[in-house]
């Protein structure tokens, strides 16, 4: 009988990355840092004053996130996914501009699908400066292996990475275990000791998936740190870990709906 294997920080092995991949990442980080304040002001102004978005428990969320990120231990954010700008709203909800102007690592890395951003030059620029690594969904195994190495490298250097374990926006509007992408499990297997912050975020008028949230949307967020563990090696282990995370998000979704926020009238 095998024992449960926790993802232990003591087993952490420093990740290496070939210079050809490492240097572009740090150039991207450097350029992003130069533009983070003006870009954030524009994006947040659009969300606050044009789209009139609001986050219901802003202050409490930011305090909790500040506590979590005080340590540089690897932190992987695993969130549900309903709109194309979830990661931007999430960033705004969790970190004030002044914080990531001073501590740039608080602007987390994201892994959007290449096909969602390649159409418009402005999207490509924003995602590049906004610490996004574009994912080629139809890429071969060496592509996904390269992505895994980059994420592992960033996490072990105290960078924060946000990932959507479902891989794509929830088509039904509800989290589905069947849609789970096992990439998150592979990342965690490769990054022992990584903390997992599960975040459930939903606009109150959001019924199904969409490109953008509705104007005047009010977002509610809940967060929970979990420590996935598995007794299974290899692919089975990756699947087990990924399913634990998505199951947690599913529980958080049930809690969200039990509170009765959804479909409330938003003025």
């Amino acid at each position, binding site marked *: 009988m095998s024992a449960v294997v926790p993802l232990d920080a003591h087993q952490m092995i420093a990740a290496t990355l070939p210079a050809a991949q490492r240097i572009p990442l740090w150039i991207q980080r450097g350029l992003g840092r130069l533009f983070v304040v003006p870009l954030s002001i524009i994006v947040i102004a659009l969300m606050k004053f044009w789209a009139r978005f609001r986050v219901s428990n802003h202050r409490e969320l930011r305090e909790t996130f500040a506590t979590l990120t005080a340590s540089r231990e690897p932190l992987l954010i695993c969130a549900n996914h309903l709109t194309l700008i979830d990661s931007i709203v999430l960033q705004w909800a969790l970190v004030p501009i002044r914080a990531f102007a001073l501590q740039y690592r608080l602007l987390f890395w994201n892994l959007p699908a290449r096909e969602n951003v390649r159409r418009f030059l402005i999207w490509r620029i924003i995602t590049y400066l906004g610490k996004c690594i574009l994912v080629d*969904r*139809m890429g*071969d*195994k060496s592509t*996904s*292996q390269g992505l895994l190495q980059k994420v592992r490298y960033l996490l072990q250097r105290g960078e924060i990475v946000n990932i959507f374990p479902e*891989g794509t926006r929830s088509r039904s509007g509800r989290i589905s275990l069947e849609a*789970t*992408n*096992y*990439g998150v499990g592979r990342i965690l297997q490769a990054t022992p000791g990584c903390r997992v912050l599960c975040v459930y975020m939903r606009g109150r008028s959001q019924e199904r998936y969409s490109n953008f949230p509705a104007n005047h949307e009010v977002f509610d967020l809940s967060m929970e740190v979990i420590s996935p563990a598995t007794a299974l090696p*290899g*692919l*089975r282990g*990756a*699947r087990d870990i*990924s399913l634990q995370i998505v199951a947690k998000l599913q529980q958080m979704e049930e809690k969200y709906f039990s509170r009765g926020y959804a479909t409330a009238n938003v003025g």
Partner: protein
Amino acid sequence: MQDQVYEKLLEIVKPFAKNKEAFEKATESSSFLDDLEVSSSRLVDIVLDIEEAFEIEVADTEADKIDTLGSAVALIKAKTAGR
């Protein structure tokens, strides 16, 4: 034996293939990702189902080499040879 392996493999793959038309016309050279439009995570499910169905163990490095129906058949045959 090969036909049996192939037929059994098709049964395993069927629920995961998004491109049903390509699945109906599938040959051993059909690619899981490009032709059948099986996502990489569902390909993991297929490998794990193959392990159970054929009572074999597939190492991660071997799983990484499975890209077509034919490569899966070849792996299964190699693992079950001599039974």
